[in-house]
């Protein structure tokens, strides 16, 4: 049997499961043609994104319940988040989505240099997002807002604010982890793109990574108002 060793686990961890082709040709043995292979990749990726949706859905459900139960405390907790940094990050992430979309377009049009450049740009935007996120985390750490044994919060609603910060760190943490994996995967794609693996006939990995990245962007589009903006009105009212 012709073995196709590959970074199986890495592929899975980044959520980019569709199989990589052999270097002797992108069409894998068990597909009839590239159309079938590409459609399968796309469907597989979308199904994976559905599971991701339900994965985030689990914690979103928990958030919805507690938001319903402890509305005031959640607004108070949210008012401690930095709306400016959150907005900046939202904008950065939209930029990265644009560059990602354009990277797929570059791959479709077989523009290798442009593809590499846009992928790197996407990674840089993603990196910038994570740096800002790190700054925010550091602020929270200093303020004692990291949930757990060292959580420190003065005020009558401390317990429920603690819950809010549990959600803040869990949700943004999982989101950031997805971004780290996506960036790592893109680094691999940059190498392969530079090598010339992708072209008009075969760019499914780029396209799939794009879907993944846009999904991560969508998650943030919801996290941003749910976590940051919720307290903004309250903060403005003070």
């Amino acid at each position: 049997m012709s073995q196709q060793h590959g970074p199986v686990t890495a592929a899975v961890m980044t959520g980019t499961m569709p199989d990589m082709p052999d270097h002797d040709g992108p069409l894998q043995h068990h597909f009839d043609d590239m159309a079938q292979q590409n459609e399968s990749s796309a469907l597989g990726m979308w199904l994976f994104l559905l599971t991701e949706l339900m994965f985030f859905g689990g914690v979103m459900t928990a958030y919805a319940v507690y938001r319903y139960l402890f509305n005031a405390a959640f607004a108070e907790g949210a008012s401690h988040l930095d709306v400016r940094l959150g907005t900046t990050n939202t904008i950065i992430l939209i930029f990265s989505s644009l560059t990602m979309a354009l990277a797929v377009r570059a791959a479709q049009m077989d523009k290798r240099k442009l593809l590499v450049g846009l992928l790197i740009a996407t990674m840089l935007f993603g990196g910038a997002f994570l740096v800002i996120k790190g700054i925010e985390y550091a602020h929270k750490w200093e303020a004692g807002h990291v949930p757990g044994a060292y959580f420190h919060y003065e005020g009558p609603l401390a317990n429920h604010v603690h819950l809010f910060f549990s959600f803040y760190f869990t949700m943004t943490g999982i989101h950031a982890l997805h971004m780290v994996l996506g960036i790592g995967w893109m680094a691999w794609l940059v190498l392969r793109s530079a090598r010339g693996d992708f072209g008009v006939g075969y760019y499914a990995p780029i396209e799939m990574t794009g879907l993944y990245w846009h999904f991560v962007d969508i998650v943030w589009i919801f996290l941003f108002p749910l976590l940051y903006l919720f307290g903004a009105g309250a903060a403005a009212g003070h």
Partner: protein
Amino acid sequence: MSDRAATPKTASERPPTRRRRSRYEGDVPREHYLNVAYGLKSWLFTIDHKRIAILYLLSITAFFALGGLMAVFIRLELLTPAGDLMTSEIYNRVFTLHGVLMVFFFLIPSIPAVFGNFFLPMMVGAKDMAFPRLNLASWYIYSLGGVFTLAAIVAGGVDTGWTFYTPYSSTYSNSAVALTAIGVFINGFSSIFTGLNFIVTIHKMRAPGMTWMRLPLFVWANYAAALIMILGTPVVAMAIFLVAVERLFGVGIFDPALGGDPILYQHLFWFYSHPAVYIMILPSMGVMSEVIACFSRKRIFGYGFIAASSLAIATVGFLVWGHHMFVSGQSIYASMVFSVLTMLVAVPSAVKVFNWLATLWRGSISFETPMLYAFGFLGLFTVGGLTGLYLGTLATDVHLHDTYFIVAHFHYIMVGGAVMGYLAAVHFWWPKMTGRMYSEWWGRLSAGLLFIGFNLTFFPQFLMGYMGMPRRYHFYPEEWQVLNVLSTAGASILGLGYLIPIIYLTYSLRYGPIAGPNPWRATGLEWTTASPPPQHNFEQTPVVTEEPYDYSKPIVNDLPAPGAGAEPKPSPAAPRS
């Protein structure tokens, strides 16, 4: 397995068997998926769905044996009312491990990961799963999850029950909850990837002419189960992840001291874990459709209704999770809604049973081992399903919840249903997977023993449950000893019934008669190729021209002569949607 793979070379040395031989066997060592490559590496790096299925078969058997051993300890302890065999700490770890191993590492992967992996691509006429490497990855993920869980045993075990209810699991338990939770979490991704592979394979990899209404019902059943895997598993993964995070970092989302609600965990947990029962039972039902049609030589009765009922079960089955929470403090109005939906989900299962019975009508029924298991399934699943109605009914559930009635009910579904179906599948497809027949006599004996042993083990538990005996009790009031002794006696027969197949199936690998491509004269693409199948399943891509379960013509245990039976050429416009 490498021993096994060597057999074709020594084919001429074997004593002659009484079975007919295909023209493909005997003289020339034929290349198939088992002997195409040798050595551990050829197995650990395989991307052949059939070999991956064998890897799964071996690993889930190991986990089943371990989980079964735990069951032996449980039943021995409950032989006497006093907790005299082991301490409560140990007992709690034993039943937790029994549940975790059996549910997450045996029942959920059992039929999909072994027989789905092996036969789903063959049944739709594909060379492999859509994502072969993802398929292998899912086995590694499964194994990694298993390693974490086994590590948890070494680290002192876990005592939360397989349900990991908060806040006991998140705050109070002094056992290796986090390790086990991580193991189950990781294992969930294995299930997700298997389901994802199934769905894409069914949508995109069907052979020419294999329309949706020509799919075998096993494929439909696995499709429905795969939907649950990809939509449900992530939610329980998140729930268990939150428990692990709460234990490790004190991020207390379920902590009552912070105002967290422990019932919320139960919502998230059962959103998956109730449909998970259908992950176990739907593929088993799919096996039933294959086996019953084959051994009664009849087209399945009401094909469309059986296929649709699988989807109905998968869909409505998602909306009934709250029936695990009728006494939890959930809103009584939510309970009411969950109750009525639970009632409705019982109906498609009943429809299936009626259709199988109707299939037997005016058939030509024979009683080989897989059919005996199918009969066993019908009886036990009927009891299991009907006793579910007591639990979906609000008032009776209040009395029966968390008693041995529940234990008996879900064992009738999971063991009487899912495991019987699994064993039916093992015996039905064993000749195809290995090329050998097992001993029919021993097969029938163990099927009979399992049926008797199972009923003796679990029927008394219905009575105990109505008496009020709570589940997960290490010791109990004396008046229930008689029933517990009966149950333990049955368990010993049950254990024997599980051991026998392991022995004669292993024996058959070397000494069993050659099976031929189609020993049961069954329909379905998987039987149109050699046993064991060649590496790419079919010598040439099959073309489907007829509906499934067409038993209207004689079928022989042989392959068509090369070029003769195959369709002239695949039609260019293969329907894929």
